[in-house]
């Protein structure tokens, strides 16, 4: 069914050009800003040091992990109906992680120094050290797994082992990423031993949103262009899982909000009352970005409609991006030990340069995606699955 992939044709080339132009424009703009003004072109400060670029990185890293976890459904746990999306999941996980890493690189003060300073100094106490190790290995194993699939090796022993290793690395990487925030007891809004679970859940949700969107995009938003097993998946198990994931995400946010609002500790409760729930954008992201798609995916009459699925995926995409942003900023809005120099919650809106970095990340993901669709067969499946589907079709006709 590969010939139905519109990314291989003119539409793909068009998208390639557009995303390439946007990518270059935002990259060049960001680099000019950074080289002329340095990080003064960010709206972050010593009081609020992590801004939207960190949130963007977090979003990408977790979406990548989410896709890796989704891929493990067929590859590790044997949910065969997910095979049609496995390869695309692995590919998307790889490119989305690359995009996130580029955003992070441009956020750091001395990016090239990182390449030697982190491995050589081996600071095992630092969660950020482990982040570097785990995500680098994660990237490597995603690539490895992809190459195995590329060579048609789905079920060989090594392929399985690489798949399992990749799954474990994804868990380690994203769980550890959560601990970067979750272990900070001086930032009580983040301090939470179960944060890794929250991250796993939301990671899979954002990965699912990316998968649904990009899978349909490849086929020009026409389901009939997809192979039969893929169509079955998109009208069967997948939308139900999507619904459950958004529901779980909402549940997580709800319990965090309830404990946050209940506590007397102003460093947590004020973040909820005076920052998150005081922001119309936060409300929008919560109700339109998560609750609405949840309702859509819950209703069996809507869940299987293509346009509803695409709508839900876009909304969840944006909703979770906002969620990451508010999570990162929310942990910092209470000024830490500043007295009346900063009498109110700190305010932060991303600068043009910071937006440029986010846009750069998104456009790079699109760019690499189109290239991937063009040069690989991302819908490839193990022969057994393709054949069964073929037989079924033959029998039906």
């Amino acid at each position, binding site marked *: 069914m590969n010939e139905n992939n519109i990314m291989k044709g003119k539409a793909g080339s068009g998208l390639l050009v557009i995303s390439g132009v946007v990518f270059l424009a935002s990259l060049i703009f960001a680099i000019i800003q950074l080289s002329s003004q*340095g*990080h*003064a072109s*960010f*709206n*972050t*400060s*010593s*009081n609020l*040091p*992590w801004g939207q670029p960190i949130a963007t990185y977090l979003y990408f890293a977790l979406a990548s992990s989410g896709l890796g976890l989704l891929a493990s459904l067929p590859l590790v746990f044997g949910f065969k109906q997910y095979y049609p999306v496995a390869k695309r999941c692995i590919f998307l996980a790889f490119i989305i992680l690359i995009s996130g890493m580029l955003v992070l690189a441009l956020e*750091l*003060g*001395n*990016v090239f*120094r*990182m390449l030697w*300073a*982190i491995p050589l*100094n081996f*600071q095992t*106490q*630092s*969660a*950020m*050290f482990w*982040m*570097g190790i785990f995500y680098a290995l994660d990237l490597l194993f995603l690539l490895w797994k992809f190459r195995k699939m590329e060579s048609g090796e789905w079920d060989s022993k090594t392929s399985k082992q690489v798949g399992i290793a990749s799954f474990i690395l994804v868990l380690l990487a994203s769980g550890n990423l959560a601990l*970067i925030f979750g272990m*900070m*007891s*001086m*930032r009580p809004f983040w301090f939470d031993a179960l944060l890794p679970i929250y991250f796993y859940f939301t990671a899979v949700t954002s990965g699912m949103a990316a998968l649904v969107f990009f899978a349909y995009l490849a086929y020009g938003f026409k389901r009939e262009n997809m192979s039969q097993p893929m169509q079955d998946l998109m009208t069967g198990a997948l939308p139900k899982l999507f619904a459950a994931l958004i529901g779980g995400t909402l549940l997580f946010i709800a319990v965090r909000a309830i404990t946050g609002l209940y506590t007397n500790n*102003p*460093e947590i409760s*004020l973040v909820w009352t*005076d920052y998150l729930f005081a922001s119309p954008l936060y409300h929008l992201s919560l109700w339109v970005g998560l609750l609405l798609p949840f309702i859509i995916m819950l209703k069996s009459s809507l869940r299987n409609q293509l346009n509803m699925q695409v709508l839900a995926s876009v909304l969840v995409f944006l909703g979770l991006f906002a969620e990451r942003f508010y999570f990162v900023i929310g*942990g*910092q809005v*209470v*000024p*830490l*030990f*500043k*007295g*009346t*120099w900063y*009498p*109110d*919650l700190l305010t932060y809106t991303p600068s043009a340069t910071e937006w440029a970095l986010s846009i750069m990340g998104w456009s790079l993901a699109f760019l690499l995606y189109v290239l991937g669709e063009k040069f690989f067969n991302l819908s490839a499946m193990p022969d057994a699955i393709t054949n069964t589907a073929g037989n079924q079709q033959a029998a039906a006709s």
Partner: protein
Amino acid sequence: MAKWGMVIDLDKCTGCQACTTACAMENSTLPGETWQDVLFYHEGEYPNAQMKWLPRPCMQCESPSCVHVCPTRATYKDEEAGGIVFVDWNKCIGCKYCMIACPYGVRFYVDEKPLLEPDLREIFPGENQQLWSPPYQGPDEDWSKGIGVQPPGVVSKCTFCHHKVSKAPEGTVDLDEDNPAVKEYVPACVRTCAPKARYFGDLDEPTSQVNQLIGDKHGVRLKDHTGNKPQVYYLGAGAGVPAFQPSDKGDKS
């Protein structure tokens, strides 16, 4: 080796900010890069509202969370230097995780929007890889300890004036500005404090002035629940930090 500690007597401190100024001059810091600052707090409401203030250097914590999180060991606690926590500007990658992790808000990443106009970095543009090059600079630049003017993209913080303290004769217990023999080695903030609210000395030496004061006058460490165990102690009635309350929340009765 000594374990350097500071004692700040809030009953004597007038909140004059002389220490803040002395620190900025000694270490060539930018406006807003307040390695040493005096924080003002108000607590309670009429009729028992109070205003309080406390000078705040880096606490040079015994269990420094900034050190634990630093992925490159750029931030490190130097027991050889009396337990001072330094930033190695040759190693710092500017990830700012230490700024997230320091409960005392004493770390600075001055590659940010200027606090004041005109921007001093434009008036004195950086030379020799410095972020900015003010005309007067201390002679003791040492990037491996974060002393001097930093390059761009790194974090800076109070060094307990290591460039002075480290020159004190071996075995010095009290760095007291009233003692002519050691006054040159006293940290700038301590030396300049007019009401003599600050004391500096060896916490490992039982007879040191700082230990005596902490013991006799009920010295406390701020935000002690963080477990960071500062090497800076506070004396006096005002030694405590009220919970955060946005300014517009008060006085609504």
